[in-house]
């Protein structure tokens, strides 16, 4: 109340102050006099307003988008909070996460892919973050959610969301990629666009508490207990084994993504963030952490998420997402608007560290040029790259190849197949090739 105006008739600035009825009346009177003044001033300009019409009638005068003022320049726009939770422009409706037809039979045990072809920078908007559910998603009441930590600990403990969110938090930007991302392409080209080849990939700023602090809080025996089991509260009771080395390094118990609470599709109210490791280990609806002296051989460690090698053996506990990159535009399924200049843009990432360089080829891998890396360049996070390119109207094959801070260079599909065959399903980090045809269309191809 002490902040109310004392000088009557002074113009009030909304919405910082509450106004009394009297103050509002005064303000309104003041506005009336302002409008009256404005009306008088506008009188002299009335003739000038008619001019654009005269130009618009002449086709050669210029662009009607400039010469004819649109409704939004001549009318009153929407008020604040017309959409209390903001939405993208209606003109952006085409950019949605989508299922790949025929990939799965049951939509509650399926995946929707992020539209990488239309995203900018490195952060994935929360509504476009890819989804992978094993037994459907839930919107869980956070007041009823609990996290239990037990096993090889001094004291088994239970935390509420209130407990966790009172703790000192950290915020880190990391990519999350499904181990099966690009899995459909092991044997041959199978899908048309980067949304379906690489869209089980997203990147957010996550906020939460380091798992290490919680393990310390429970007195975990991190010498004997070399593994932790993470378990979800959903029907699938999603479970994965995490190395204690990871758990003590950079794993987070997170409740937020990109500045707001996790979306239900992404594990609201609590999920594990395991930087550099495949998405299946980022257990959603996290309810339990158990410290143990052996890995836990869960369903998604012995039946799925095992990588079959040419000798018939399955690699178990493959976790790290190795160095990888992809050009997101121009990319498969797109058509160029014209010949001439283009910005070739894409993203690169590595589960072992930072991106050190990205090379781009426009001639199918004969010659390469270093692309510009945009900042920030962070550990186990997407890095955006760009390269100038002029399309002369002929065939071109666009490829990108990333090198990470450990020196690993992204391999060709041929090099990968030589070692891992074609039936691995998981961990395909091959160089992606996009063929630009003379008709302007871009297609997904593989180079021998």
């Amino acid at each position, binding site marked *: 109340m002490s902040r109310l105006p004392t000088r009557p008739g002074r113009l009030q600035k909304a919405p910082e102050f509450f106004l009394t009825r009297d103050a509002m009346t005064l303000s309104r009177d003041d506005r009336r006099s302002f409008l009256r003044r404005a009306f008088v001033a506008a009188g002299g300009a009335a003739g000038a307003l008619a001019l654009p019409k005269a130009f618009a009638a002449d086709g050669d005068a210029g662009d009607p988008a400039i010469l004819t003022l649109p409704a939004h320049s001549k009318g009153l726009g929407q008020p604040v909070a017309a959409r209390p939770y903001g939405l993208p422009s209606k003109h952006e409706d085409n950019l949605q996460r989508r299922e790949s037809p025929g990939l799965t039979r049951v939509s509650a045990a399926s995946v929707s892919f992020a539209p990488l072809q239309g995203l900018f920078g490195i952060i994935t908007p929360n509504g476009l973050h890819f989804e992978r559910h094993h037994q459907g998603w839930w919107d869980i009441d956070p007041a009823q959610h609990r996290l239990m930590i037990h096993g090889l600990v001094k004291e088994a403990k239970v935390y509420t969301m209130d407990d966790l969110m009172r*703790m000192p938090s950290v915020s880190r930007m990391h990519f999350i990629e499904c181990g099966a991302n690009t899995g459909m392409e092991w044997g041959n080209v199978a899908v048309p666009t980067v949304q379906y080849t690489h869209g089980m990939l997203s990147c957010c700023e996550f906020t939460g508490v380091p798992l290490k602090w919680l393990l310390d809080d429970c007195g975990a025996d991190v010498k004997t207990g070399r593994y932790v089991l993470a378990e979800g509260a959903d029907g699938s009771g999603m479970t994965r084994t995490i190395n204690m080395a990871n758990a003590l390094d950079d794993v987070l118990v997170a409740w937020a993504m990109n500045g707001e609470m996790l979306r239900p599709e992404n594990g609201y109210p609590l999920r594990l963030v395991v930087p550099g490791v495949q998405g299946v280990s980022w257990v959603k609806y996290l309810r339990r952490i*158990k410290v143990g002296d052996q890995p836990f051989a869960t369903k998604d460690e012995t039946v799925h998420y095992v990588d079959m090698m040419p000798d018939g053996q399955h690699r178990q506990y493959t976790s790290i997402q190795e160095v990888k990159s992809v050009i997101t535009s121009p990319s498969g399924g797109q058509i160029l608007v014209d010949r001439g200049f283009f910005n070739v843009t894409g993203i690169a990432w590595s589960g072992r560290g930072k991106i050190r360089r990205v090379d781009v080829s426009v001639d199918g891998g004969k010659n390469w040029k270093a692309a510009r890396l945009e900042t920030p360049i962070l550990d186990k996070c997407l890095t955006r790259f760009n390269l100038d390119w002029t399309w002369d109207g002929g065939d071109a094959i666009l490829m990108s190849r990333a090198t990470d801070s450990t020196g690993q260079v992204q391999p060709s599909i041929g090099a990968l197949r030589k070692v891992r065959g074609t039936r691995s399903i998981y961990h395909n980090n091959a160089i992606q090739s996009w063929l630009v045809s003379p008709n302007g269309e871009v297609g997904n191809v593989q180079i021998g």
Partner: protein
Amino acid sequence: MSRSVDLRTLRRRALASATAALMAAGMAAHADAPAMLGKLGRAATPAEVKAWNIDVRADFKGLPPGSGSVARGQEVWEARCENCHGTFGESNEVFFPMVGGTTAADIKSGHVAGLLDPNAPARTTLMKLAQLSTLWDYINRAMPWNQPKSLATDDVYAVTAYILNLGNIVPADFVLSDKNMAEVQGRLPNRNGMTREHGMWDVNGKPDVQGSACMNQCASAVAITSRLPEYARNAHGDIALQNRMIGGVRGAETALPAPSTFVALAARQAPPASGVAPAQSEGLKLAQSHACLACHGIGNKIVGPALLDIHKKYAAQPKADAVRLLIVRIKSGGTGLWGNTPMPAQDHVPDVEVRTLADWIATGKFQ
């Protein structure tokens, strides 16, 4: 005048808070053992740990006492599992098949030879399964699909025994229990089929495939070895509707044949006025969110009848009656009208949503 004063104040405040944030960040970076240790959360009670401590490890630690026969397993299977997995665990309709592709020789060697066949139609669960604990644990925690964690412990043993019997791993009169799980583990066809000899678990592990860093004249010729066949052009829907309508590129109009020559955008025909896919109806959203479509295709039978067929069946009567009947069918489930496969009761779906679904099916406009 007063406005510019306010802006200055705002800027000063913003600067002050940014400085404070920087100082806080600096301090946090050094806080290895935060002050919250021991001050938040509480001890878990033994009953709480017992309630959630359900995992069973490869060495069978965590396995609760109990037993179940193949015969009992068959009963449970036919009532609870067969809908999705098929009578013999062979179904490929809803999930990947569980049983098939293993031999007596595999049981001896512990390696499934069929995995080496590049033309094998699918890798079944029993072809891949290396740890018996995993099968038990997963059935116990996640099955049946729409009612997880509802099986009694003995029935989890029984269903596990039945699956093993379908794979000829245990005989038809077998009783599986916590006492003999380890023994049966020794008969799993792919028990020796896993390796941890790779560099992809540890962040410092050594990668097995290294790319080339060559920059110039790296290949003499470029051969395209794989591309999408022309008939698959529109298999993922119209790509034009999956791309932004502004910028240096558009989505290709895959509903039409590929253009034979290049036409710059300015000379192309105007795109459809609203380049946007039609909105989903409330009914379709609910049918997806409640996984109705897992068993009922819109135009095709899956486990249950196609929604279009259900619509036709009820179309003969007044819509209000059809809606009333459909509400009852959805809520209570049942068997007999469309065959012997029972539909589970959907009594967890809120009434208002059941009504929307019933109305959607009775209306028959499946968008």
